[in-house]
């Protein structure tokens, strides 16, 4: 293990900063410096993007712009494509019933083919959500820059990569030049120390962080997550944390690479091999934040303070403990806060002051780039055995990739889910954003392991989303109401 003790002080607190030469750097600074090509006329940096990931929603217009420019993809071997947002999770045979979705998959296939880009299509058995596929293939590597036209690209930061969600014009920039124009971010170190109690998961940790720092708290920052809890986390747990950085306003989030990172990557299809592997590990280790590096801000969080956390409103920072009571707009400290609470409660059809526990659930969704990995399904399966989905609840389990699907089936996990009354589906984004047939209807309320509770996010303009961990989704599914998984599954007894 690398020594992961950091001396960190907020910039403002350092009256006499040592000179730049004598001071260590954090990972963000190292990766930035290594990939900075030159300064642009507006003061931004032309930043080299080591790995570019694309999908069907935000790339077709970029390829159109590339054709308008008369350009080619500059380094086609550095772009990887998959299809995720629009793929149906039940009827996966083409042509899809939705002609628009069908046009999108055909367009992606055409672009990948024309420009010589590796494409993990449905028939490869490697298709899945772009943020699940990258790590699983070993494409996501420490110390690199990664860009993707999707705001959850920060997921790849779990490996110590600096990964940016970008718009379509920037997708064009990366295709045409393997670079993009960007201003340097500040870095906030978020230390989470201690141990989680039974029934509390990585998802609760990130929801807690977002609630504490706010949905716009991370604007202008990259988040470096560390501390003893993050060090103890598996790579999949780290991905869950980094995935939701953008919900806290931070464009990237990362964890320093360590032995767990290297162990995860070893032997993956795109990981280096032999002598190259040794060299890569050495380079990756050198990119981790130095002990004497500086941060622009530091936040300390105690793991013991984190309870199973759920959202109650229409912004991901409107989250609290499962035992919380809904806020009262009359007790708001500002007019803006009063309006916001009012609007959220009205949309969610919840009453000020009441408990969220016991709220009726119509749909339970298990999946997404936040929580659609093998460990998520394994953990839920441990508790789901012997339980049945409550009458009137539609419950779906959607693996994040075809490989997750295969591995889960090999372990018989899908049977645990189907026996309990879940539908076990094919890989894709599914009900996280409803660009496919999986959608809420009317004002259905969904207990969801996804990442956004925005109005209309799950496909119905009046649909309601309550974000939570996968085990909490399972608890809601079997009890028919928003519940404390520790009570439903008698978790504390089982784990202590």
């Amino acid at each position, binding site marked *: 293990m690398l020594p992961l003790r950091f001396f960190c002080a907020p910039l403002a607190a350092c009256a006499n900063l040592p000179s730049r030469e004598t001071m260590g750097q954090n990972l963000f600074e190292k990766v930035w410096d290594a990939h900075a090509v030159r300064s642009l006329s507006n003061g*931004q940096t*032309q930043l080299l993007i080591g790995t570019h990931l694309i999908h069907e929603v935000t790339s077709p217009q970029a390829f159109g712009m590339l054709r308008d420019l008369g350009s080619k993809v500059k380094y086609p071997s550095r772009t990887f494509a998959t299809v995720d947002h629009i793929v149906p999770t039940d009827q996966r045979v083409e042509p899809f019933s939705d002609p628009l979705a069908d046009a*999108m998959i055909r367009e992606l296939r055409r672009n990948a083919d024309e420009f010589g880009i590796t494409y993990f299509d449905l028939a490869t058995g490697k298709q899945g959500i772009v943020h699940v596929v990258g790590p699983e293939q070993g494409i996501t590597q420490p110390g690199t820059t990664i860009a993707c036209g999707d705001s959850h690209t920060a997921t790849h930061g779990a490996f110590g990569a600096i990964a940016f969600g970008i718009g379509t014009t920037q997708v064009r920039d990366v295709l045409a030049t393997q670079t993009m124009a960007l201003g340097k971010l500040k870095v906030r170190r978020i230390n989470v120390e201690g141990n989680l109690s039974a029934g509390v998961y990585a998802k609760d940790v990130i929801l807690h962080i977002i609630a504490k720092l706010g949905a*716009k708290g991370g604007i202008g920052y990259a988040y470096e997550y560390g501390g003893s809890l993050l060090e103890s986390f598996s790579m999949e747990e780290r991905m869950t944390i980094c995935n939701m950085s953008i919900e806290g306003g931070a464009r990237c989030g990362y964890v320093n690479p360590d032995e767990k990172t290297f162990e995860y990557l070893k032997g993956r299809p795109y990981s280096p091999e032999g002598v190259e592997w040794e060299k890569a590990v050495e380079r990756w280790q050198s990119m981790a934040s130095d002990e004497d590096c500086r941060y622009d801000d530091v936040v300390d969080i105690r793991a013991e303070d984190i309870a199973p956390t759920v959202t109650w409103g229409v912004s991901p920072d409107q989250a609290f403990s499962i035992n919380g009571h809904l806020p009262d707009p009359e007790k708001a400290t500002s007019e803006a806060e009063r309006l916001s609470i009012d609007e959220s409660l009205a949309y969610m059809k919840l009453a000020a002051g009441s408990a969220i526990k016991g709220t009726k659930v119509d749909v339970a969704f298990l999946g997404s780039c936040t929580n659609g990995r093998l460990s998520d399904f394994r953990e839920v399966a441990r508790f789901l055995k012997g339980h049945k989905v409550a009458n009137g609840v539609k419950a779906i389990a959607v693996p994040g990739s075809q490989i997750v699907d295969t591995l889960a089936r090999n372990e018989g996990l899908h049977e645990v889910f189907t026996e309990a009354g879940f539908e076990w589906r094919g890989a894709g984004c599914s009900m996280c954003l409803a660009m496919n047939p999986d959608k809420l209807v009317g004002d259905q309320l969904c207990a969801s392991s996804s990442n956004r509770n925005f*109005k209309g996010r799950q496909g119905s303009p009046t649909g309601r989303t309550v974000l939570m961990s996968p085990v909490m989704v399972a608890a809601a599914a079997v009890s028919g109401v928003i519940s404390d998984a520790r009570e439903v599954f008698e978790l504390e007894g089982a784990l202590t």
Partner: protein
Amino acid sequence: MALEKITQVKGTAVYVPGNDIDTDRIIPARFMKCVTFDGLGEYLFYDVRKDEEGNDKDHPLNDERFQSASILITNANFGCGSSREHAPQALYRYGFRAVIAESFADIFFGNCTTLGMPCVVAGADEVRALAAAVEQDPAAEVIIDVAGSRVLCSGMDFSVEIVPAAYEALISGQWDPIAELQEGDAAVAERISALGYLPG
């Protein structure tokens, strides 16, 4: 590529109140099933503008007094959520040419700048006063003096913040960076070989 130098945007404005207005609200995901950005303007703010039968709901963009507005006024953390450029594209294609807000989400801000659509930051008090002025006189001309970082309307004149890189890009007509990025091709090749981990 010679682009327009965006030193000033003027027009009438509309106030869409709210903090944390996210990109799903600006353009619901189901309208992103497309391979071009054409026609997206029609679906701007769709679910808050239209009911389930497609009839108009009570929303500032449905108010006939604001039909010609080309400047959007709103509150904090505008454009949070997804990186979808469909959101700024929908605003632009609807007819907006600038946004005045208390703050913007990072990715959305960058996407707007790349389209040559200035996003300027005003204080909460200024936003409130400007919204009131526009409500009182929907025909009032709002001038965003990008070069001078000021907003003028109905006798009001206040300073706004524009991120320095965006400011430079807009006033110099280099808000779409592609030409300058392509000029760096040789330097990019050098960086790739220096890094060593990337197959050229």
